[in-house]
C-alpha cells in the first residue's frame, strides 16, 4: 500500500516538475508548480510528517504559488515571451542535467540502506518540542529573516529605479 502511494505521488511530483520547465506560458508553469507542491505534501504524509505536509500546503501551495500567479498576471509577460533558448544552450543544459542526475542517483543508491525505524505517532508535539526547546534561537532568527524579507520586498516594489 505504502509503495503504491509513493509511486503514485512520485509520478505526480515529477510530472508537475517537468510541466514547470516545459510549459510555454508562465501561468501554466505556476499551476504545474502547485501540482508538484501538493504531491510532495502527500509524500510527507507517507513519511509520517503530517505537520510539514500541512505547512507545505499552506505556505507553498497557498502563499507562494499565489504570489507567483499574482506577479505573472500583473506583468502579463505570457504574450511577450520570445522563442526560448538557443538549441546549443538547451543541449548544454540537458547534458549538464544528465551528468548531475547520474551523480546524484549514484550517491543515493550507494547510500547504506537505513533500517526502518519506529516513530511516535504525535508528530506535531515532536516538532513543537524540537522547535521550541532544542532549536529556539534559529526559530527566532527565521522570524527576523522574514521581517527583513518583507521590508526588502516593500522597498524593491515601491521605489522607482530610474537612474
Amino acid at each position, binding site marked *: 500500500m505504502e509503495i503504491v502511494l509513493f509511486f503514485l505521488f*512520485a509520478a505526480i511530483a515529477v510530472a508537475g516538475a517537468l510541466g514547470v520547465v516545459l510549459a510555454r506560458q508562465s501561468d501554466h508553469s505556476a499551476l504545474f508548480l502547485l501540482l508538484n507542491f501538493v504531491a510532495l505534501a502527500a509524500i510527507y504524509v507517507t513519511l509520517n510528517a503530517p505537520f510539514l505536509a500541512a505547512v507545505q500546503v499552506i505556505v507553498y501551495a497557498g502563499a507562494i504559488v499565489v504570489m507567483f500567479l499574482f506577479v505573472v498576471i500583473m*506583468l502579463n509577460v505570457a504574450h511577450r515571451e520570445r522563442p526560448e533558448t538557443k538549441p546549443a544552450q538547451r543541449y548544454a543544459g540537458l547534458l549538464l542535467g544528465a551528468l548531475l542526475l547520474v551523480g546524484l542517483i549514484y550517491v543515493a543508491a550507494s547510500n547504506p540502506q537505513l533500517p526502518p525505524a519506529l516513530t511516535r505517532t504525535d508528530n506535531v508535539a515532536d516538532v513543537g*518540542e524540537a522547535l521550541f526547546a532544542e532549536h529556539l534561537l534559529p526559530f527566532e532568527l527565521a522570524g527576523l529573516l522574514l521581517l527583513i524579507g518583507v521590508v526588502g520586498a516593500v522597498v524593491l516594489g515601491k521605489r522607482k529605479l530610474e537612474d
Partner: protein
Amino acid sequence: MISSSLYLILSAILFTIGVVGVLTRRNAIVILMCIELMLNSVNLTFVAFSRYLVSMTGQVFVLMTVAVAAAEVAVGLGLIIALYRQKKTADIDDVNILKW
C-alpha cells in the same frame, strides 16, 4: 516500509529537473519557480532522513527552509517587478549590464 534510497532518488530527479529549468529557461519568473523546485527536493531529503534516523532536527530544518524560501520569493519577485519597471522585460537575456 520503503527503502530510503527511493526517496533520495526521487529527490535527485526533482532537483535535476529544477537545475535543467534554471539552465534552459529565460523567463526570470520561471527561473524562480525552478529554484523553488530545487528547495523542495532538498526538503524531501531532509524529511526522509528525519524519518529513517528518527530525529526531529530534519523536520525543523525543513521549517527553516520554508521560511527562507518565503523570504526569497518575496525579495525575488520584488526584484523582478523592479526590473520590469525599468526594462519592460522579464527576460534575463536582456539584463546583461553586469556581464563581462
